[in-house]
């Protein structure tokens, strides 16, 4: 399950921010490692909500520092 979510998230980050999908690993920070800025993070969140039917509130987005954080959140709420 988590692997599917990671693969899906990698595809989203690639499309939204142009980051190679293979670089999107669990330990990578969106901002520091993948250069996903705050605007692109909004797009990532929108795409995740649409793909998995979850709601990711703004108050939660600031806690999603790494790809692993996002995968964990989505897995728990999907």
């Amino acid at each position, binding site marked *: 399950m988590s692997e599917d979510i990671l693969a899906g998230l990698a595809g989203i980050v690639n*499309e*939204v*921010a*142009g980051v190679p999908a293979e670089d999107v690993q669990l330990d990578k920070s969106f901002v520091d490692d993948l250069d996903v800025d705050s*605007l*692109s993070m*909004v*797009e990532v969140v*929108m795409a995740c909500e*649409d793909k998995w039917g979850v709601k990711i509130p703004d108050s939660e987005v600031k806690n999603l520092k790494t790809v692993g954080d996002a995968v964990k959140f989505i897995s728990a709420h999907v």
Partner: protein
Amino acid sequence: MTRNVVVTGIGMTTPIGGDAPSTWAAALAGTPGTIRLGPDWAADQPAQIAAMMKVDPAEVLKPVEVRRMDRSEQCALIASREAWADAGAPDVDPIRLGVVVASGIGGINSLIQAYETLRDKGAARVSPHMVTMIMPNGPAAMVGIEVGARAGVHTPVSACASGAEAVSYAAKMIEDGRADIVVAGGTEACMNGVTMAGFAAMRALSTRNDDPATASRAYDVDRDGFVMGEGAGILILEEEDHARARGAKIYGRYGGSGLTSDGHHIAQPDPEGAGAARAITMALADADLSPADIIHINAHATSTPQGDYAESVALRRALGGQADHAWVSGTKSMTGHLLGGAGAVESIFAILALRDRIAPPSINIFNFDTSIDLQVTKDGPVQLPAGDIAALNNSFGFGGHDVALVFKSV
């Protein structure tokens, strides 16, 4: 101390070419850029023809660049990258580097797309990039970030005179000592049902839907409006000593500019051409030239019945009998009307005409309108003389904006 301005790089993406060399070659060959529009939205439009960019930006840019930028920003970036590379990617102090890139309409394609998202999916799905895609200064800002310009990034807006006003503003930045290099030009990409319907409602567009290639026909008696075009033109303007010190290739000189306004009507040109004539006279004075020095004119010549005539009157007012020996080219007959991009693309055409000593053709003149008292290149390109020569480029915008630019050969 006088600071002279020269042109050291050019870039274009237009309906007749994906870059500057191919666009210029197509212009000299008399290539029509107007096509019949394919999209569904065009089906019930009065004007179903337009001049789309020859090379779609998506073929050139990375997908993420296309995603984050409006089409008008995309073509500005493409032309800027070409111009910057053409100038030799100059090593310049960022605080001495400026950008002036104009758009007449702005990112309306993106605004419409955002509205459709809002309507269909709700506010939570409107893109966080929407605002930076629709703001009129977006193209200038994107180019400014691309080259790292820190002397100032500006966006004059004056409808179809915007691109020319940008070139003037950029040259002033150099003359006034604010910058040594300025990336200058204009861009437009507003091909959508809303814009096309609006211009058609003004009766501004040609509706020669059954014969797109000949629809843009400035100076022909049967001209019936302009053809919407899209694309961008970018010039690298540089202080002459700066350019010479680094051994840059120099295409030509910026001579001067004149900017006036009609104070007459929101969309109609002043039929007396008074404001336009004053702009031309001011540009000549700024360039320290007289009417006799103008050998070539890249006219605004959009192919509207009133506009082409009013401009011809203005040229006669400003140049008098000296207009007799100037070859006038109406290149929108090929490119269509790039609105905010027009003044920049046509400035580049004027500079290349001086460099290559050839005035491009004005196509689609089947029956020359004899009320136009000008010497038009209606039979094909015309050789220009050797020696020091100068060219004039006119641009006029809805709202009564008149901008004239003068360029000199090197």
